C-alpha cells in the first residue's frame, strides 16, 4: 500500500509529529545531494514505527530532523503542533532535551562517566538538582534492568548493556518521542533481542517510538513499518502484530 503517510484513524487524536514536504539537501560537495525529497508524514502518540530502506535512502537524515539534531532545507516540521523547522539553536537544544530521546547505533556513552552519571547527563542540562538527578537516573536504569550496574563504567559493560544504558539516558527525561537509529546494529542476536524486548515493553507502557533497522524481524516487532527509497517515503504497512 502506498500513499500519504498519514494514519487515517486513531480517533480525534492530533499527530505528535507532522512533516510537510520536507527536503534536505547537502551542498557540501560539487553536486548537491538530496537526502530527502519531499517527505510528508504524521506520527501519532503511542505509535511504534520501524523505518526500513536501502542504505543511503535517507533514513538517518529523516530521523535527525525528527530529533531536531538537524533542520530541514525546506518544508515544515510540527512537533506537538508547534512549527520547529526554523527555531534557533537554543530553542532546538531545549526541545532535544525535553521532548526527544535519542539512541544511537554507536551507543555514544561518555567513557569517563559511570552508568548513572551517563544517564543523568540530559537532566544536568534540564537544570534538575543533583539529588533528583541521581534518583531519576537510578530509576531509569532500573527500568532497563541495570540497577545493579549503576556504578560500572561503559568499558565494564557488554555491548547490550551499554545500549540499555543509552536507552535509560534517552528515557530519563520522559521524552514525547524515542528515536533509535539502528540500535541493534552493533549487537549480537541475543543482546538485540534484549534491547528489542525492552523497546516493546516501553511501547506497551505508552511511549512513542521510531526505530530504524535493516533487519526484517526487527522491523516486524513494530506495529507499523515505513519504507524509504531515494529520499522518499514509499509506503507503510501495518504489521500483523
Amino acid at each position: 500500500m502506498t500513499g500519504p503517510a498519514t494514519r487515517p484513524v486513531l480517533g480525534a487524536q492530533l499527530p505528535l509529529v507532522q512533516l510537510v514536504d520536507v527536503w534536505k539537501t547537502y551542498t557540501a560537495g560539487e553536486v548537491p545531494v538530496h537526502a530527502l525529497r519531499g517527505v510528508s508524514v504524521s506520527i501519532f502518540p503511542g505509535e511504534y514505527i520501524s523505518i526500513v530502506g536501502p542504505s543511503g535512502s535517507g533514513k538517518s537524515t529523516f530521523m535527525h530532523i525528527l530529533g531536531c539534531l538537524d533542520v530541514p532545507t525546506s518544508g515544515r516540521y510540527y512537533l506537538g503542533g508547534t512549527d520547529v523547522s526554523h527555531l534557533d539553536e537554543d530553542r532546538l537544544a531545549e526541545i532535544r532535551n525535553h521532548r526527544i530521546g535519542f539512541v544511537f547505533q554507536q551507543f555514544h556513552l561518555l567513557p569517563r562517566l559511570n552508568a548513572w552519571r551517563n544517564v543523568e547527563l540530559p537532566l544536568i542540562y534540564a537544570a534538575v538538582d543533583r539529588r533528583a538527578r541521581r534518583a531519576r537516573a537510578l530509576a531509569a536504569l532500573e527500568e532497563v534492568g541495570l540497577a545493579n550496574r549503576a556504578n560500572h563504567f561503559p568499558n565494564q559493560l557488554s555491548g547490550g548493556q551499554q545500549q540499555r544504558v543509552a536507552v535509560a539516558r534517552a528515557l530519563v527525561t520522559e521524552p514525547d518521542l524515542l528515536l533509535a537509529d539502528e540500535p541493534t546494529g552493533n549487537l549480537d542476536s541475543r543482546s538485540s533481542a534484549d534491547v528489542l524486548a525492552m523497546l516493546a515493553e516501553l511501547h506497551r507502557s505508552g511511549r512513542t517510538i521510531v526505530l530504524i533497522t535493516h533487519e526484517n524481524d526487527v522491523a516486524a516487532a513494530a506495529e507499523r513499518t515505513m519504507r524509504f527509497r531515494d529520499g522518499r517515503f514509499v509506503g507503510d504497512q501495518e504489521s500483523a502484530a
Partner: protein
Amino acid sequence: MSWLDTVRSGLEAIASHRLRSSLTVLGILIGIAAVILTVGLGEGATASVNSAISALGTNLLIVQPGSSSTGLVRGGFGSLSSLTYQDAQALANKVDCPDIAAVAPQVSTVGTLVAGNQNWTTSVYGSTPSWLSVRGRSVQVGTFFTQADLAHDANVVVLGQTTAQELGLFSPIGQTVDIGNIPFSVIGVLSSAGSSSSTNEDDMAVVPITTAQDELLGSSSVNTIYLEAASRSTMGAAYEEATDELLALHGITNPVDADFNITTQSSLLQTATSVDHTLTVLLAGIAAISLLVGGIGVMNIMLVSVTERVREIGLRKALGATPRVIRRQFLVEASALGLAGGLAGAALGIAGTFVLPHFISNHISLSGSATAGAVVVAVAIGVVFGVYPASRAARLAPIEALRSE
C-alpha cells in the same frame, strides 16, 4: 545548567585527562616562572648597581685636572697638574660656594709599607679630615687624622682592613709602619667598605695631605678634589659654583679652555640605570617569548583536547546542551588550567628568587607587578587558546560533531 554543575564538570574533565592537564599546567608554569625570574634578575641587577654607586657617595662631584697637550699629542684627563691644595681650600669657602658641603682634595701614590718583617705595596692617599665623610667611610678602631695633624705634617696613617691584615698588624693602633722608609704611626683602621666594586676599597693607607705632598711626593699638585653637594638637588648649583671658582682661580675666561674636568656620580648613576633598563627590557623580552612559546604549547594541547572531544561536544548538544553551556564548560576548564599553571609558576618563580641567589652571585628582586601580570597572562592564555577552539566546536551542528572521528 547551574554554575556549580558547570564548574564540577569542568574540574572532572581536568581530573579525567590527567596527563594532558598536567602538560598544559607545566607549559604555563614554566613560562610564568621564567617571567618572574628574568624580570627579577634584571631588577636585581639594577638595584645592586644603584646601591654600589650610592655607596660611593651619591652627592659627589669629582674634580680632576684637564688633559695636557704637547703639540698634537693630548694626554688624558688628569695628565695636567693644574689642581692644588689651595684650589680645594677655595672651594671650601662657604661664601663663594654655598652649595658645596664638604671638600676633600686627594693625592695618590703607590708605596711599599713595612711593619716589622712584613711588607705590602698598596695605594697611599693623602687627604684632609673631610675625606672620611665625603667618601662615605668610617673608622672602625682608633681615630682619623685632624686639621692639627695637617698643620704639623704629622706622620700618622690610617689603614684599610686588608692592609692592616697583610702587614700582620692585629692590634695596629700605636704601631709604626714605614712608608718609603719614613716612619708613620698608625692611629686608626677603616671600617670595611664591602667589596661592591672591583678595586678593593679595604686595601689602602691614608695620610694627611700635607705630609704626603712634602714627604712622599715632593709636589704640591693634587690628583683629585672630591666635592660633596649639600643634597642631590643642589648638585647642579654646586657644579656651577665649582666651575666658576676654579676658572677664576686659574685665570681662565673661556670655559672651553678649562684645565680641569668635573664629573658627577649622578651621571654615572644615570648611565648605569639606563644600562640596567636596557637589560631589564631585554630580559623581559626573553621572558615574554618564553611565555609566548608556553602559550603556543598550551594552544596546541587545547586544540587537540577540543578536537578529540568534538564527539563529546556533539553528544552533549544532542542531549540538550546549548552552545553557551558548552563554551562555559571549556571556559571553566581552560581558566582552571591557566590559573593552576599561573599559581604554580608564581610559586616556583617566587621560590626561585629566594633559592637561586644561594647558587649564583646575582641578586634577584621579587617584582609584584610582574608576578601578578604573569598570572593574569596565564589565565588569559588558557582562556583564549582553550575557549576559541571550544566555541568553534560548540557552533557545529550536533549531528556533524557526533559523526566526527
